[in-house]
């Protein structure tokens, strides 16, 4: 059996474990062993600011996807055929559309002369076009759009398994709809919430395309610090150290979440 899995294992070993291991080595190396790269992360402002910005954006994105995704998953779990299939199609189709295409679409929608600004102008809400891209706002709108399915799918698969009878029982015992929702449905959907929160948060920590294209050079998230250190400055040591810290954050989150929820349930969605 292990033999059957071995070709796949070799691919992962060669293209994930070896590169990551090498990055770790590199992060401690500069003509000999050094902690210099990590010291710089701790002491230099740009790194701090980028980590802080990345965490702040990830928190905002995660909360936004939960607020938008929960009602959609709820509607999909409650709806009868064919509505549940239609709602899920609306979630799955964007999910499998190129991230690049979606970032481009948001550029078109949100730019100065874009559809959104034109519509607002026509309605008369604004006199001057709003700056919706080349800033944090545009980055967040596009990132939420891209990550929303990662919230809805685990939520849906959890909610779908909640027996309808439980809600009916709650109602027949005199609970109001709000009461049965809060006391029965919501707690039972929590595993899905945890899975969705974890996936979205971890993925947005490592986001690259949307801040690069919609941030206009002003929203420098951690992934961009990594790539700039390599592409512009050829600073492999610094890039590796930042990458290792990012990876450590991600792994720590998975370890903590893994204590409450089997990781298969978190990752099974993607």
């Amino acid at each position, binding site marked *: *059996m*292990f033999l059957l*899995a071995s*070709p*796949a*294992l070799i*691919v*992962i070993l060669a293209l*994930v474990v070896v*590169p*990551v291991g*090498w*990055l770790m080595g*590199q992060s401690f190396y500069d003509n000999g062993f050094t902690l210099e790269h990590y010291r710089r992360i701790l002491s230099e402002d740009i790194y701090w600011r980028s980590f802080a910005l990345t965490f702040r954006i990830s928190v905002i994105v995660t909360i936004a996807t939960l607020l*938008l995704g929960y*009602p*959609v998953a709820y*509607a999909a779990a409650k709806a009868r055929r064919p509505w549940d299939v239609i709602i899920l*199609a*609306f*979630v*799955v*189709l*964007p999910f499998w*559309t*190129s991230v*690049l*295409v979606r970032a*481009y*679409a*948001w*550029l*078109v*929608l949100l730019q100065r*002369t*874009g*559809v959104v600004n*034109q519509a607002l102008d026509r309605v008369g809400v604004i006199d001057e076009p709003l700056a919706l891209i080349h800033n944090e706002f545009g980055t967040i709108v596009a990132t939420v*759009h891209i990550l*929303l399915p990662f919230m809805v799918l685990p939520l*849906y*698969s959890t909610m779908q398994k909640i027996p309808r009878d439980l809600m009916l029982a709650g109602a027949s015992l005199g609970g109001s*709809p709000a009461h049965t929702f809060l006391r029965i449905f919501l707690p039972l959907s929590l595993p899905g919430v945890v899975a969705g929160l974890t996936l979205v948060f971890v993925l947005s*920590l*490592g986001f*690259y*395309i949307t801040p*690069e294209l919609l941030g206009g050079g002003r929203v420098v998230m951690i*992934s961009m610090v*990594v*790539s700039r250190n*390599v592409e512009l400055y050829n600073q*492999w040591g610094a890039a*590796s150290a930042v*990458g290792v810290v990012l990876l450590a954050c*991600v792994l720590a989150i*998975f370890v903590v979440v893994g204590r409450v929820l089997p*990781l298969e349930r978190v*990752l099974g969605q*993607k």
Partner: protein
Amino acid sequence: MKRPLLPRLAFTALVGLVLLYLMLPLFIIVPISCSGTRFLTFPPPSWSPRWYQEFFGNRAWVQATQVSIGVAALTVLIATPLGVAAAYAIVNAQHRLMRAVHAFLMLPLIVPIIILAIGVFFVYAKLGLVATIPGLVLANVMLALPYVITSVIAGLRSFDPTQEMVARSLGMNRLRSFLAVTLPQIRPSVFAGAIFAFISAIDETIIALFVSGGQYQTLTKRMFTALRDEIDPTIAAISTLLTAASFLLVLLAMQGRARGTPDDAR
């Protein structure tokens, strides 16, 4: 359980708005791609197929498209058998270590992609695989394996393994019984896994930014570099084609899956 009308309407409206937010960007690129002007005004003042002509008439774009499609096809050919074998091993092995193997094979989903990109770039630089087709294919196989494995495991779990045992008790060896009995029945999930591997390879951007180059640039790498400078409607034309292709493929995959495993809708 009849609820008051007003909250229900508000709820439906909210869900509708979120669904609109999900879908609208995918459709906005279609009219833009048919626009007669270079400016991205909406609705376009005039219509013309010029951006599609621009795309199909430009050697660099066509070449990049060929690279992307070729790489994605090779990725499917390699990732699918590897993924099926691994999924079969994970589902059928009794050993406790197999859980670890499963988690290990999901690593490409856990490690942030930028870290994989610079790591793979470095390893390729040592091996001379930068800006080569085999390099691109291998990286995409690595990224696609979790999709294939997840899809096939779902298929295998909903399949009754005793059927294969019967085939073996009748004298077939393990491989033949798998090919003759199991594989035909889990075919939809294998097919879905293969399609997801294809889409993931076509859409992959970040690793390609680092390891593809020269004459072997992928379509997404060219799009990304073009997007940093200008956002002319040629990109909208390409995006429309890409989106149409993914829609078609996802619908195919979903249909295959729905037919194969009725109670396993994700």
